[in-house]
């Protein structure tokens, strides 16, 4: 019974798949088309990535410019001239130091 089944299977197999010259040509063309499509899709994906990358680079440059601008602004606001101007133009409570009182040094331990 088992021997018979195997025979039928072999017969079916041999009759269904036959690789002749035409089949090889069709298979090769199919493979080439598939490879071509794959290449196209990958190239397209890379090109898209390239544009995304350019966009990100542009954003990075813009953010760096903004950072530099803010740094310069922070530096300007900390300049002595700016502090003095702010002090004179606003009702700030800055008072120049006129006298400093120092505690006398002592050998007695302070509890």
């Amino acid at each position: 019974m088992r021997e018979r089944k195997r025979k039928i299977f072999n017969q079916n197999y041999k009759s269904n798949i036959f690789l002749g010259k035409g089949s090889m040509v069709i298979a090769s063309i199919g493979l080439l088309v598939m490879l071509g499509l794959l290449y196209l899709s990958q190239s397209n994906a890379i090109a898209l990535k390239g544009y995304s990358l350019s966009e990100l680079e542009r954003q990075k440059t813009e953010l760096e410019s903004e950072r530099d601008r803010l740094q310069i602004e922070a530096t300007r606001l900390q300049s002595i001239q700016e502090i003095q101007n702010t002090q004179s133009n606003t009702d700030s409570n800055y008072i120049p130091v006129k006298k400093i009182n120092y505690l006398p040094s002592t050998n007695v331990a302070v509890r």
Partner: protein
Amino acid sequence: MQREYHDLGEQKGRIKTILAFLVIFSFVIIGRLFYLQVFKHQYYTKIASVQHWAQGDIPAKRGEIYVKDDMTDGLYPLATNQKLSLVFGSPSEMFILDDDENKIDKKSEVAEKLSTYINIDKDKLLSLFESNHTYVPIKHYLVFDDAEKIDKLELPGVYLTDEERRLYPEGTLASQLLGYVDSEGVGKYGLEQYFNEELSGEDGQYKAEVDLSKKKIAFGDSVLKPSTDGADLVLTINRDIQSQAEKLLKETVTKFSAENGNMIVMNPDNGEIIAMANYPTFDPNKYKEVEDYSLFRNSSVSDVFEPGSIFKIITMAAGLDTKKVEPDTEYDDKGVILLNGYKIMNSTRKAYGIVDMTFVIEESLNTGTVFVLNKIGKNIFYDYLKKFGFGTATGIEQPQEGEGKIYTPEEINDHGYATMTFGQSISTTPIQMIRSFAAIANGGKLIKPHLIAEKIFPDKHKEITDNRPIGEVMTKEATVKETKMMVSQVENGHGKSARVSGYKIAGKTGTAQVPKKDGGGYDPKKNIGSFIGFGPADSPRFVVLVKIDTPKGIPWAETSAAPPVGKMLDFLFKYYHIPPTEIIQ
């Protein structure tokens, strides 16, 4: 049949003719191809390269110059880089097309709209656009907000591009010490010139494959030589003290209608320059507006002058160190000494009789320093001048440093040499003078004055300046004696106006005559007032020099130069919380 034969012959002839044409045509094509590919190879390779490749320099970032905040240890830039925008125009593109593809000129409209944003007259802009130039720079250094506004206008033929400018956020502060960077990116004067190579770094280069829109192809070929940024400099200058020095100096120069002035504050132990101010000064952000180029010079370092009586401290140092004189050594001051047929007199034209060396310093007697010279001899005096570093540049990090001039005993006669003891017939620079006083303040060590605390390289490694002494000038014992004599000058002599309540200050005044420009003696209408002081005298933390050139109506330095030294020392003691050393009366 016959006809067919003829037809065949004709046909063959035609075929041959066509073949001949084909052969000739092929040769023409091959010839043309040969011409294009072989003879014009380089030309077309270049064109293709321009289309496929983008290339250019990657500019290196110029190193920044910082000062350290002593209170927070943070760094604050005195010189930094600012990215700004250049707006430029292409007049031939200043048009729009109507529905029939006809060009409508928009130059006038562009000029009108731009003028409101960049503060340039419309007619001036229009005449610029009417010129035949293909490219016209319209305005440099536009700030971000203004550039953005112009960009949003979308004016035809108007473009924006990035440009970088050196920015000095503190304006005139320490300007002569910093110098400036010109439009070519080259450092001029000051630290910008001295360290130009290290600050500039090295530009890189790139070459990358680009697409039709000139955008870099993400995974295309590229060649990259990265740029190396310049090193950052951290100065020994304290911004607050520098500001105070400039304020005091300006007040003094203005008050006495002087030509100019210098103030230096130095740490005597290690040679760190805490402040170095000159007046008048300039704003390096607007260096193009300066008409008098001498303002660019750091005169504290480059200008030589006859020091006058402050130099008596050097003569006395030689006498004390060789033990030829002591503070209480006495001599008979007759008020005049005759040498080589010339008289040497005291500045007051008076004779003081029997006086000691402390009195010589207190009252600044010229005859007293000539007495010291007679005791030590000219050769030893010359050796001490060399030991103190006179006649040689100190090596401070500034270009065009002056060396000054001292004479060997063989070069000038006895009279000339005697005048050197009180600061005539000799020239020096303010930086040399303050260094010599620092040697007395620190116990006899010669230090190298410097402005750089450290350099920070792009790879973050630091190079810290070696601030150890470079030589021994005199013994500590001699410096202690001389310091006491200098304290006496401030307490009892001409330096009273440099006193600071609660602190002992050591110092010496000097009122130097100014040689005439034609070389015929001294100008009676001019003098240079100077004062160098240090304190607290027992343990000096700061040496301060003030030099005021040609103050009007002021005959002596005790009125012009000594007061700002006292005020500066008072400020320094408060700033650094140095407690008083004396009981305040």
